[in-house]
């Protein structure tokens, strides 16, 4: 198979021109993950040195600078940095140049250090209504903190000395690159509000011009797998599909365009359907409602799935681009002129991706 440019030509129209205040849903399954596609979004917004054809395609429409905020709940900074390097994107350098910001929702989402500076976090002992204070320590114990294999023993909030990753994080957050760590405290809408504030502060930081008189940049927000947040909290903690959807809407208000990556594996989507024979669990219902509701709100839905005919040596999966429920809501003109289509893709060993039609 011939090598294709970092942004395959078949993919370019879907990845590069996102209409303003739009939501793009990127659904993936376990066998066909969407990391490569998120990297293509990063590349189309940040990569492509001046003079490249892809850049002309981007810059021609608005002429405004593009910046990206990546919020990842399933993968850490190291993963994204090394994967982007294979595409020729130096995320650390871009962070220094304030074109890119990474928000880490994985490392310390459920870890609330007792010695946090009060400006960034309020500890549950000093604020918040009484019920959340009594409920939180009990429920957080069997949660995903031990399951992640973290080194900390069970009473995490009471640890006297912060461990090594925490120190490293503090150094990073003091450094030039805004690698922000998210912490989930409390329950329900308040907890989501705190996360939203953290992310919007990063967005605002990126928006403020470096040199005075500079035009406000277009921010692309990529939220990677926030369904982890829903799965880890759920209705018992006052977070359901509606709250998650509204949380995404709140983030959308601050940025030019939003890309939302979610899992669409069968158990997460179809077990909650009316045709299912068993009563579904709250987790199944809430994630199905969140994913389907997001598809209703999205202008474009990119669906990744396995090849129906089984595994193949030269095909990684199928990408289907469809019009979401909100398509056609705003007459966006030329930016809405794209066709639905279904293509195959192949992720090569070096991280390069070929996108081709069936039979090509």
């Amino acid at each position, binding site marked *: 198979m011939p090598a294709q440019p970092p942004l395959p030509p078949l993919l370019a129209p879907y990845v590069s021109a996102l209409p303003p205040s739009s939501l793009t849903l990127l*659904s993936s399954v376990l066998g*066909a993950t969407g990391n490569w596609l998120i990297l293509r979004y990063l590349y189309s917004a940040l990569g492509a040195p001046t003079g490249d054809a892809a850049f002309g395609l981007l810059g021609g429409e608005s002429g405004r600078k593009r910046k990206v905020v990546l919020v990842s709940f399933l993968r850490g900074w190291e993963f994204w940095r090394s994967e982007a390097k294979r595409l020729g994107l130096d995320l650390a350098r871009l962070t220094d140049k304030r074109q890119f910001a990474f928000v880490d929702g994985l490392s310390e989402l459920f870890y609330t250090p007792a010695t946090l500076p009060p400006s960034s976090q309020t500890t549950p002992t000093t604020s918040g209504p009484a019920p959340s204070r009594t409920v939180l320590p009990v429920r957080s114990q069997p949660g995903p903190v031990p399951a992640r294999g973290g080194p900390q023993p069970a009473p995490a909030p009471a640890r006297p000395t912060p461990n090594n990753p925490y120190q490293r994080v503090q150094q990073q957050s003091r450094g030039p690159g805004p690698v922000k760590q998210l912490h989930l405290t409390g329950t329900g*809408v308040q907890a989501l509000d705190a996360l939203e504030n953290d992310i919007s502060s990063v967005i605002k930081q990126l928006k403020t011009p470096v040199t005075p008189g500079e035009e406000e940049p277009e921010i692309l927000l990529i939220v990677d797998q926030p369904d982890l947040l829903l799965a880890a909290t759920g209705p018992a903690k006052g977070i359901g599909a509606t709250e998650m959807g509204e949380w995404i809407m709140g983030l959308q208000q601050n940025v030019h365009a939003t890309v939302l990556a979610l899992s669409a594996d069968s158990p997460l989507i179809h077990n909650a359907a009316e045709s299912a024979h068993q009563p579904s669990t709250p987790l199944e219902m809430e994630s199905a409602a969140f994913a*389907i509701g997001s598809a209703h709100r999205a202008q474009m839905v990119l669906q990744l799935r396995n090849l129906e005919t089984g595994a193949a040596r030269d095909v990684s999966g199928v990408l289907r681009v469809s019009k*979401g429920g909100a398509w056609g809501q705003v007459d966006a003109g030329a930016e809405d002129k794209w066709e639905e289509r279904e293509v195959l893709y192949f992720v090569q060993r070096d991280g390069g991706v070929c996108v081709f039609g069936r039979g090509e």
Partner: protein
Amino acid sequence: MAPTSLSHRQTHNLLLISKLLGHRDTASPLTLLIDSLEQPATPLIKEYIRRAKISKVHVTLIAFETLKPIDGVDSFIFARRKNPSEIAKEVGAAQQKTSTSPSTRRLILIDSINPLLRAQRANAHFHLPTFLSSFLLPSSPSAPKGDTSLVVNFHQDVPNPPIRSPYQPSPLSTLSFLATTVITLHSFSHILAQKAARDRSLAAPVFGLAEEQDGVLLGRLDKPIGNEFAQGIVLEMEHRRRSGRGVLEWYLLPPASSYPPNQLKEIVTLLDDHPLYRPPEDPGAQEGEEEPQSTFELGLTDRQRKEREGVVLPYFDAQQGNGPGEGGRILYDMGEEDDFDEEEDEI
């Protein structure tokens, strides 16, 4: 169906749908749209707004899902993280603001009721019928009775929230009991594919989420069967009249690009009238049955037909009964063009 009753149904039901979409004579105070990912209600909502603009109706959009106001909406109420009572208050305030203007007809659109039904904040005190009727009833008895219609969109593929009490009906049944008109949306190309399968006695195909395929949320593609004319939305309408009688009809709404935005003439047609759904009977096919293609002239001229009818066949003669053996004879009068052959025509 007799042609007269078909044309009667045509005029009657087309009048009804233009009344419903244009909100004339408060034909339907509460319209429920049931959509799915396979056919979202966005084009129909835009059509509602377009018609409201033409007839100068005040449009309010209560947005649970929409981020930016759609063109043509007069007041846009962003319902994110708001209690039902707050939403009702805001809608009332938006109406107060415009009540000085002479237009009293209002249209309130709810882009999706599902987030509200699922919301954790919607506690036990939330009562859907009360919430909906708070928009329709005037805020105070002294206020002028406005002419308000409510259009509520419901995504049928989003799973229903768990029912709080086993004796409580599901939100969809509550809504469909309350609604005066229920419009279910289908994609035209899917309807055609299902009809084609039914015509051949095959199981109708399913699309999108109903396929239950791993990783498939949406099945719709622009040109699934290579048919560029299969665009548009099929509306399955159930209208409940005040008398209690229901009207069921299937309509087709063409895509917005196929008519100018200020078109006044009705663009919705009956689904049965669409050539792709019910192809007109091919006139060539019937002629072909009578006259197979041949180099011979197999037809009859008028004169030939008349003469053929005049021929008395032998068995008629035999029935006259002039004695045994007499009746079955072939009687033949020689014409001018016959020439007598002794060997064959021996009598």
